[in-house]
């Protein structure tokens, strides 16, 4: 395990690279969900204010 984590001495470069990439992926999931939630809320608000539907 220690050998694996050491990455042949390249651990200070390999692991941060993986961390940044997976942080970017996680953020993409969070941002996408947040956008959809906000748009739904906004659409609901417009419907309530607009009152009548077409």
């Amino acid at each position, binding site marked *: 395990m220690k050998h694996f984590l050491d990455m042949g001495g390249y651990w200070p*470069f390999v692991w941060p690279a993986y961390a940044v990439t997976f942080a970017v992926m996680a953020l993409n999931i969070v941002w996408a969900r947040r956008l959809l939630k906000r748009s739904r809320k906004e659409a609901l608000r417009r419907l309530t204010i607009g009152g009548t539907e077409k």
Partner: protein
Amino acid sequence: MAWTWFHRLASPPHVYRLSARLTPWLAWPAALLIVAGLIGGLWLAPPDYQQGDGYRIIYVHAPSAWMSLFVYTTMAVAAGIGLIWRMKVAHAVAAASAPVGASFTFAALVTGSLWGKPMWGTYWQWDPRLTSELILLFLYLGYMGLRSAFDDTQRADRASAVLAVVGVINVPIIHFSVVWWNSLHQAPSLMYLGKPTMPPSMYVPLLLMLVGFTLFYGAVLLVRLRGEVLSRERAASWIREAVRT
């Protein structure tokens, strides 16, 4: 008949429902492929004869760089379709893609820089490949900045689409930069046609990651697209039903 699918794709309620239905079909295979690619890339693939275990950065760097180009091309094509056919859904695809592409361009630059330090002895060099990739990040940021400068979505769609289409010229420049100019960056390891420069134990995990990242983009795009489509609709009757589900 042949064009029915194209016309259906122009219909916001159809796209909204289709996106919701398709998302898990892209998200789960993406997760599985990425986990398989990680196991293959980090454990099963042998160390490189020159770079040792340092080369394993390729399994996140190359897919991120691929995403930066693929997402931009998708964005530019969608923006072009939006401009030519005045298709709201196409503009929504372009707008939904930009933050995804920008974030992966950032990841490609950072992981490349982390790979460059031990192998080239520097985090950064004003080299053709690196510089053109940095310009790509600015193009994404410019596109997003331009969109946010307009209150009116339709005007934002049209203005930003022109920028996206013009900026697509940078995509082949990035791709061929390592061939056209003398670059620190290595030539492509996986060619679309021709033999890869790596053994299967090294390139199969890379292929899994490339496909996994692309499907991930598809899943994130579909979720964002639903948001973008909703924000472009005003009091249409289908919205009431859509926001409840």
